[in-house]
């Protein structure tokens, strides 16, 4: 009997590996752009013909390769990026497996032109279906250009699965955008059939890059976050709650500069938005995680789309907290007119890992958003103040408008506070805290209130009795659809206990978008109570009462947002005023 087992020739093995790495033109684009980024390119140009199916080219001005390296680069497991298994545990570069070039070359007519940055001869290598067909000396500028023609010409089964040119173009452009969002100091240009789709100059700030990709309208709805706790840092841009919409939105996640997908991280970020956006509304998210290299395993997926965090729970909790802390500041409140274009990621001094850091003013210094590997740092940017300071709650600088809104002067302009929404936020947080502390003190009544309820309401009250007691309603006797109230909460001097109770019970018994978005009965009751008990629109307030509401609002965790997903604060900056009055 003859031997059955033999080693596959290299070009066959590469074809099989290619199946994992190169799925479609977009994956080739991604691999090649990553290589260019690893080579510290300042400009990367991507050129597609028919969505990359007939030809795709990635050209860079990176450090290039000398002839010997270029020849090695197309061998499997040839890499300059790691040396041994120790390095594998702390990978900073985008590539590390030494697999991409041979895999692509195995399934296309491949051409690599490169010349080292130090100068010297250039090299051109041509490969067809994995077989080197020519190696020439050429003259060219430093950098590398890879051209991939007739992708999958020798793997017809895979060629069949390619989609329309438009769909492939979209995918390739999406792959480019992902990398462009993580590499601000590199310029990108993407052309498809000679038409320019992306032209992204080097940017100092993430918001500028977002602006050049999708336009300034999207960029203007985003606010910066930057939060660090216990070695994990989460920075980036998140959407102002008032600008969120139902349905799909843009979500980009990066860890140590590497794009990844992880629905749990997205869910953790959305958790940070809890109570600030209406049910079903989804924020756009651009989150940049930085974790110690050994805390994340990027080698779990052939296209590196997924990563594994060593401490998943801690990572997700930090993301939630980061988003929360971003929503704490005044920045997250909508403003009239243009948002000040200060979308820089501003560090708020030392790591803000303490529970519930208060918004604080003060000079803040710019830190680079992300420095990929040992690549050059982002462009330096002058430090700038962001307005996260609580406004001065001076009664003299506050006015009540139409017995419903409070207008107050702030250092950089003015804010308008919706008194009902603001008080809703205050009460909601108060009650959630009271639950932990065993309930609120409740005022006993001289004349108990007797309230008739519908059978559904009576049943709801009976079920929720314990929680209602914790928020201050002491009830008795549920027979024949009447309850007697012996004690009530007394959250403010204009509070009408009977009305609040009736409205609350009706809402809790029959449901509403507000209470249905709660995650448990305690939160359900707290939301309903906050909404029904808060100071109403139309209630005249004294200067002292306004000042007190301000103090309490800005002492709350999320002062800018009520519990329905509406803003509590509107800002109008002096800049905008000056612009409107033609003073600039």
């Amino acid at each position, binding site marked *: 009997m003859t031997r059955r087992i033999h080693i596959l020739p290299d070009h066959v093995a590469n074809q099989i590996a290619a199946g994992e790495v190169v799925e479609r033109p977009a994956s080739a684009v991604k691999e090649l752009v990553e290589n260019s980024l690893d080579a510290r390119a300042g400009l990367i140009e991507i050129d597609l013909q028919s969505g990359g199916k007939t030809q795709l080219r990635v050209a860079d001005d990176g450090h290039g390769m000398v002839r010997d390296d270029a020849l090695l680069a197309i061998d499997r497991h040839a890499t300059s990026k790691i040396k041994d298994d120790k390095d594998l545990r702390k990978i900073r570069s985008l590539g590390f497996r030494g697999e991409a070039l041979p895999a692509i070359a195995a399934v296309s007519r491949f051409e690599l032109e490169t010349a080292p940055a130090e100068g010297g001869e250039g090299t051109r290598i041509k490969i067809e279906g994995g077989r080197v067909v020519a190696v020439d000396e050429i003259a060219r500028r430093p950098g590398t250009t890879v051209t991939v023609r007739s992708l999958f010409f020798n793997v017809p089964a895979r060629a069949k699965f390619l989609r329309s040119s438009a769909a492939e173009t979209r995918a390739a452009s999406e792959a480019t955008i992902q990398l462009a969002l993580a590499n601000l100091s590199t310029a990108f240009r993407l052309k498809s059939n000679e038409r320019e789709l992306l032209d992204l100059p080097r940017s100092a700030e993430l918001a500028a890059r977002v602006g050049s990709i999708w336009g300034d309208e999207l960029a203007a709805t985003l606010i910066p976050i930057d939060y660090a706790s216990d070695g994990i840092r989460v920075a980036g841009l998140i959407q102002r709650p008032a600008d969120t919409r139902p349905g799909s939105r843009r979500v980009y996640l990066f860890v140590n500069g590497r794009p990844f997908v992880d629905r749990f991280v997205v869910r953790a970020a959305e958790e940070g938005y809890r109570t600030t956006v209406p049910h079903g509304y989804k924020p756009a998210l651009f989150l940049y995680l930085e974790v110690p290299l050994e805390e994340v395993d990027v080698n779990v997926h052939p296209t590196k789309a997924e990563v594994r965090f060593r401490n998943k729970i801690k990572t997700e909790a930090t993301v939630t907290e980061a988003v929360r802390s971003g929503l704490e500041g005044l920045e997250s409140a909508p403003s009239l007119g243009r948002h000040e274009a200060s979308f820089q990621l501003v560090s708020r001094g030392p790591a803000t890992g303490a529970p519930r850091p208060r918004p604080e003013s003060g000079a803040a210094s710019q830190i680079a958003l992300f420095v990929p590997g040992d690549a050059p740092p982002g462009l330096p940017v002058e430090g700038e103040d962001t307005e996260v300071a609580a406004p001065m709650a001076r009664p003299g600088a506050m006015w009540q408008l139409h017995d419903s809104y409070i207008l107050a002067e702030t250092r950089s302009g003015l804010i308008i506070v919706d008194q009902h929404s603001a008080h809703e936020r205050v009460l909601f947080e108060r009650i959630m805290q009271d639950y932990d*502390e065993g309930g*609120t*003190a409740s005022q006993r*009544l*001289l*004349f108990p209130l007797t309230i008739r309820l519908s059978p559904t309401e009576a049943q709801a009250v009976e079920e929720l009795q314990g929680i209602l007691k914790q928020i201050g309603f002491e009830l008795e006797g549920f027979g024949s659809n009447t309850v007697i109230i012996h004690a009530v909460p007394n959250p403010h001097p*204009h509070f009408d206990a*009977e009305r609040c109770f009736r409205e609350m019970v009706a809402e809790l018994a029959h449901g509403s978008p507000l209470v249905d978005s709660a995650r448990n009965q305690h939160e359900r009751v707290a939301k309903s109570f906050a909404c029904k008990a808060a100071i109403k629109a139309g209630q005249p307030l004294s200067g002292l009462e306004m000042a007190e509401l301000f103090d309490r609002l800005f002492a709350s965790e999320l002062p800018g947002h009520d519990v329905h997903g509406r803003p509590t604060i509107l800002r109008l900056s002096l800049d905008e005023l000056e612009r409107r009055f033609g003073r600039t």
Partner: protein
Amino acid sequence: MKVTVTRENFQRGLSAVAATIPTRTTLPVLSNILVETLEDGLRVRGTDLDISVSVQTAAAVERQGAITVPAKKVADIARELPDAPVQFESEGGRAVLVCGNSRFRLNTLPSEEYPSFPDVPFEEGWKLRGGELQTLSAHTSFAVSGEETRPVLNGVLWQVRGEEMRMVATNGHRLAKMGLQLGVGAGEEDLIVPPKALQQVERLFDAGDELEIGRSESHLGFRTARTEVYTRLIEGPYPNYEQVLPKSHDKECVADRGELTAAIKRMAIIASDQTHRVRLSFGPEKLALAVQTPDLGEAEDEIPIAYEGGPIEIGFNAQYLLEVLRYVGTDEVKVSLSAPERPATFEPVGGDQDYVCLVMPLRLME
């Protein structure tokens, strides 16, 4: 119409009614006052439909008549006029006001459009000194409720029982009750009066004035020869407050009112700005006060008291305590208690006032 009146009288009349003029109204004529001539004087009237005020002043009448003028404007004018007689005249649907060299012509609304004042049979009513009414109302009105769902509690209950009368007000959390013995009998009445009307009465009548009081089905009237105040009554029934007045108690404390007030004020600084809760522990010889507010901190204090009864720990809204202590006018105050979920009563010590305030406790958390 045409009258001449001194600037002083004119101004006094206007300011007396000004307080009743509503600032915002859907009925334009209500932002006007009605000026009408009497045989030898002038009467000025203002109303917001709930409370109506009318005052008379001496004037030389040349031609009888009535006219309405914008209240705010005329009051502003009167304040700036030179010290000279004011001539007031209607002329072709406009009001002409002349004083020294100043001359004003104001647009008016027809006087027939002005709401008529309630008709109250004073002859069936009773009499009372202004000061007595003021004492009753000043000690009780503060306790009314602002809640819309129980309108009766928005008013002060005024009970007339022959030679005794009483005022009671409560918001359901605390209650104030004052009684007064009168020299004369005055029938039996249970009236629920808006505190705003009582404020007007306190403001417009002097302590020595003898007021005539009368009521109709829906209104109550107060008058002297020159001044009349009418108010709509709030419809009852008023809750049975007598039932909640503690009949007995087994714990009694006498404290220095100033000391107690000061200690509560100190505690209130740390008390939660929402519940204002202070914890009081009564024991022999001393009262211990304590507050705890989770986000803020804690405080304790202690004052000497005279005390009889077993020890008790009870929580209150500090604001309610301070309010009640303000109205109990004597140097010492008597506090009576029975149980942590039962009301405490506060009464003056010494003096001859029949005054008691009740405060319901806050439930204390374990």
